[in-house]
């Protein structure tokens, strides 16, 4: 048996590539949903909205303190339990079996990533200088206007490198989607590998596909940063001035 059967590996690439759309769908949609909720949670925490702030702290601590795979299982097995609890009380007929694996994955990954994004945005908003909001007030803006027009655009730029890392982590994390029965890159590779006893080949194929995806994301985020940071100018050098 050759070390690596390249021919076999190459032949399987198209089959494994079928997992890429699943990976990207989960990562992109979870990222966008997480962005909205993350931002809201960050604001809740910054403005210390009573009750919601404490709930947010608890939620973020739980998400960061438990493995994603456990969260996926809790969610996957928790939804039917929840439905069993709700159905008799409200006369509903919700059936967990009717929910597609993709929906499970989208919701679970969104819940997970929102917690991390909340922390990123909280840090980024706090990193904008206090004077910016004061200046917004001084020209007669409301808090909402100041946030939307002045603070958030600046915070988003500060957050961008971390958001990029988070997105790459999200892509890698989709390899756990098998827990909610989504057939993405790794799940497909695993089945082919088990069938043909070609483990090394299949997992190398999977690695290279993930690797390529991540490098592509890195490039895209670097471009995005370059484009958005036009107003930074010499700001780095003069950061101490404000």
């Amino acid at each position: 048996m050759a070390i690596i059967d390249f021919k076999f590996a190459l032949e399987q690439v198209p089959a494994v590539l079928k997992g890429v759309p699943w990976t990207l769908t989960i990562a992109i949609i979870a990222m966008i949903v997480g962005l909205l909720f993350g931002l809201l949670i960050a604001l809740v925490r910054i403005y210390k909205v009573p009750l919601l702030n404490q709930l947010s702290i608890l939620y973020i601590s739980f998400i960061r303190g438990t493995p994603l795979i456990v969260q996926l299982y809790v969610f996957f097995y928790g939804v039917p339990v929840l439905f069993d609890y709700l159905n008799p009380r409200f006369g509903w007929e919700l059936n967990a079996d009717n929910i597609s694996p993709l929906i499970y994955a989208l919701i679970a990954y969104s819940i997970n990533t929102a917690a991390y994004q909340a922390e990123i945005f909280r840090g980024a908003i706090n990193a904008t200088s206090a004077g910016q909001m004061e200046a917004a007030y001084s020209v007669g803006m409301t808090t909402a206007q100041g946030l939307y027009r002045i603070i958030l655009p600046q915070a988003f730029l500060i957050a961008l490198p971390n958001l990029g890392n988070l997105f790459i982590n999200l892509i890698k994390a989709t390899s756990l989607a098998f827990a909610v029965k989504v057939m993405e890159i790794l799940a497909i590779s695993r089945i082919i590998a088990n069938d043909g006893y070609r483990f090394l080949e299949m997992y190398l194929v999977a690695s290279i596909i993930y690797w390529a995806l991540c490098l592509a994301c890195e490039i895209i985020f670097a471009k995005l940063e370059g484009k958005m940071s036009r107003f930074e100018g010499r700001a780095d050098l003069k950061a101490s001035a404000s």
Partner: protein
Amino acid sequence: MIELTNITKSFKKNEVLKGIDLQVKKGEVLVIVGPSGSGKTTLLRCINYLERPDEGTISVEGFSIEGKNASRKDILALRRKTAMVFQHYNLFKNKTVLENVMEGLIVAQKMKAAEARALSVDLLQKVGLSEKINDYPAQLSGGQQQRVGIARALALNPSVILFDEPTSALDPEMVGEVLAIMKKIAREGMTMVVVTHEIDFAREVADRVVFMADGVIVEQGTPDEVLAHPKHERTKQFLKRLVREPEYEI
């Protein structure tokens, strides 16, 4: 036109303002001087409610609000009658020079973009920055940034402009250009309240000088009365030290 009554403010247990009463007439240039920690900046920031006073009343052009329990609407209305020039300029970093000046006009005063633009271009010409209108703040020197800050305040056509140590973050060679513009707008009749360490500016431009120390107004009067012939020991000490070793707050 501006009337502050019994303004008090504490940070934790430290009482910074101990019941200040102050009036400013229309078109008057009022300069507040005093040692650091005297409460002068806090007082200035109470006028547009960037600092919430614990007690007292703020009244600008007949619109008056209670310091302690002002509603959000009242605060916004008060801020829309005033403008501020900050020590560290606080230009919007994500906006160009022109956008910085237009921002308040479009967002807070709902002015049409074309009109706001024309007005802003005029004002930037007045502060000598016509060529920089499409630059971002980070590309400007400190003096240039502060001139944009003044244009931004002027654009709002406020009842009063509050200057919070506008030159103390500047390199010495840039102080002159900023003071020159402040003199210009003072002569045009703008009501100004200026917290500064520039005694020469106070002497030359101020209609009235207020000396503050330890959260109270120690004395006030014409520049000649307060700066040349101070009555109180505290004022004399402050001025003597200022002559010997100029105080630069960073």
